[in-house]
């Protein structure tokens, strides 16, 4: 009973934390939005509007109100799901973003599969062979991935693998030729093309996805490798590893059945956080590969100073991060018996 009470208390305190963080996020995006040099009124009414029209729109937008009132208004809008209209596209911002999101999710999901698929085995190998040549090579390999400017690696990879070798597709999500051939049902091109039974489109999409996803994955594998290595080292030094050996398990079995088994939960939380950071790489890689996703939408609007769009994008990234943090925390609590 006391346990249930404690649990309730921790849940409610966590809820407060999240609410405060969300509020802070909104303040931050609001401030960024107000600081932007572009004149939102001018952007709406155009360059040659009369003074009266200008004043009217200025008033309509509430820009003549005190700043805190403007914030409350923004808060109210956000809470009712109104994120404003994009000046560039003339569409509600949220609609734009939702349309761009699947492309980014498709890219990020493939990237994280590659990143975890690379990073976890490498991290285990490095830990098992601590301070031997394998460890050193893996360390340099993963630091290399962490150090490369991904926008540059993207270009070099395009030159080499697309322009010279022709192994992969170039920029965009598919060949120009195929655009518009499949109906958008989910927005995920791989799924949509399969649903439509268009295998050519599907393979074209895979061909275009593989290069940016590999690069993003490689860069995120650095973090995953490092964390896996340090988690494994913690476990390998534990006495229960000796117990397992005494029972007659081989070294490989103790490593995979006991040590690795014990870090699985931690790894899931790490991969969840790495998934969030992929958004960062996505902004740059999408620009290089002309990938019509969230990152490109954000940068395009940044450059022209589309306030509503930028504010909402920043807000969304923040929310995604908070959700991923929360999720990894939750996973940890659910699957680690010690936290019960």
């Amino acid at each position, binding site marked *: 009973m006391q346990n249930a009470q404690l649990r309730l208390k921790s849940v409610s305190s966590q809820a407060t*934390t999240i609410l*405060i*963080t969300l509020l*802070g*996020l909104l303040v*931050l*995006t609001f*401030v*960024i*939005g107000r*600081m*932007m*040099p572009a004149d939102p009124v001018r952007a709406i009414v155009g360059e040659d509007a009369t003074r009266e029209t200008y004043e009217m729109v200025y008033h309509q937008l509430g820009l003549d109100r005190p700043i805190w009132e403007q914030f409350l208004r923004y808060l109210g809008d956000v809470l009712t799901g109104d994120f404003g209209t994009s000046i560039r596209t003339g569409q509600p911002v949220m609609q734009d973003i939702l349309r761009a999101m699947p492309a980014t999710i498709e890219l990020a999901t493939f990237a994280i599969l590659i990143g975890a698929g690379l990073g976890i085995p490498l991290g285990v190998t490095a830990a098992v062979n601590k301070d031997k040549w394998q460890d*050193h090579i893996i*360390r*340099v390999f993963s*630091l*290399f991935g*962490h*150090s*490369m*400017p991904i*926008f*540059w*690696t993207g*270009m*070099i990879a*395009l*030159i080499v693998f697309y*322009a010279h070798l022709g192994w992969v597709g170039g920029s965009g999500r598919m060949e120009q030729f195929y655009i518009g051939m499949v109906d958008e049902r989910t927005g995920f091109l791989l799924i949509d093309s399969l649903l439509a039974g268009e295998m050519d489109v599907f393979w074209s999409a895979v061909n275009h996805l593989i290069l940016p996803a590999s690069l993003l994955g490689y860069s995120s594998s650095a973090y995953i490798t490092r964390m896996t290595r340090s988690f494994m080292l913690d476990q390998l030094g534990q006495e229960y590893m000796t117990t397992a050996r005494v029972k007659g398990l081989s070294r490989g079995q103790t490593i995979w059945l006991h040590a690795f088994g014990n870090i699985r939960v931690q790894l899931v939380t790490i991969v969840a956080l790495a998934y*969030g*950071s992929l*958004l*960062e790489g996505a*902004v*740059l890689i999408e*620009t290089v590969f002309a990938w019509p996703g969230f990152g490109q939408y*954000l*940068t395009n609007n*940044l*450059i022209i*100073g589309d306030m509503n769009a*930028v504010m909402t*994008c*920043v807000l969304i*990234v*923040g929310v995604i*991060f*908070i959700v991923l*943090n929360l999720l990894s925390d939750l996973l940890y609590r659910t699957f680690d018996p010690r936290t019960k």
Partner: protein
Amino acid sequence: MTVKDTDMPRQASQLPSSLLVLRNILTFLMRSPTSAFGLIVLGLLIVIAAFAPLIATHDPYAQDLANTLKAPGNGHYFGTDELGRDIFSRLVWGSRISLTIIFLVSIVVGPIGMIVGTTAGYMGGRLDTIMMRITDIFLSFPSLILSLAFVAALGPSLNNAIIAIALTAWPPIARLARAEAMTFRKADYIAAARLQGASDMRIIFKSIMPMCLPSVLIRLTLNMATVILTAAGLGFLGLGAQPPMPEWGAMIATGRRYMIDSWWLVTFPGLAILTVSLAFNLLGDGLRDALDPKQMNRR
């Protein structure tokens, strides 16, 4: 924890022992080939930046429209760009911009992080909660995206890029300084200072901050790779240093149009960024080992 041990004697006999610690760390770093590589590259970067006018073969801004997009060779080590400027010289001068960014970000981020962190850690209570909440909000963004948003708000320029990076880089420092301050808060000599009637302000500035300094400096080094990459990324997106400045990221952005035929336009600036950020990462990795007592004691 790790830093505390090595720096306890520092409090007692100021300079000599701290120099000794520095020398020990340097010896340790030079013993591992990877961190030695990091140190040497960064040393080289500083030398190149300091003697840029002597090392550069051309004026980085001098256009030579008769010699545009020339491949490496013929007096142009790394070739020329679309306006006939010598890429090698631009890279050499660009190292000054990189060092400026690193320097300015450090002197902004270090103190802000220190003050927020030590104050929160030392004072504790409500102030601590509020300050850490704010820190967490900043931490809940990937740094590049937040810097992007700030630059968009401030307007694209090198200075604003530096401000934006600094604004996003302080929270991890603050977290670290807070953790350190919390361990020192309970130390006897702090209690002694308080009993003597020293004000909180004085204790924070005179006793706590010097103790947190070493670990903060290391953390700053570790962050520099990210700073370099973020700055280059901003330059690439056209939100950082503006042309014709020879900033490496911006050079890649302009070179992008010609990359298929003139690979050298993007290749060399990219290699420069990669080398410097790799050097910082390797150095940071070595520093982490150097300051981990478990590692130090091992043969």
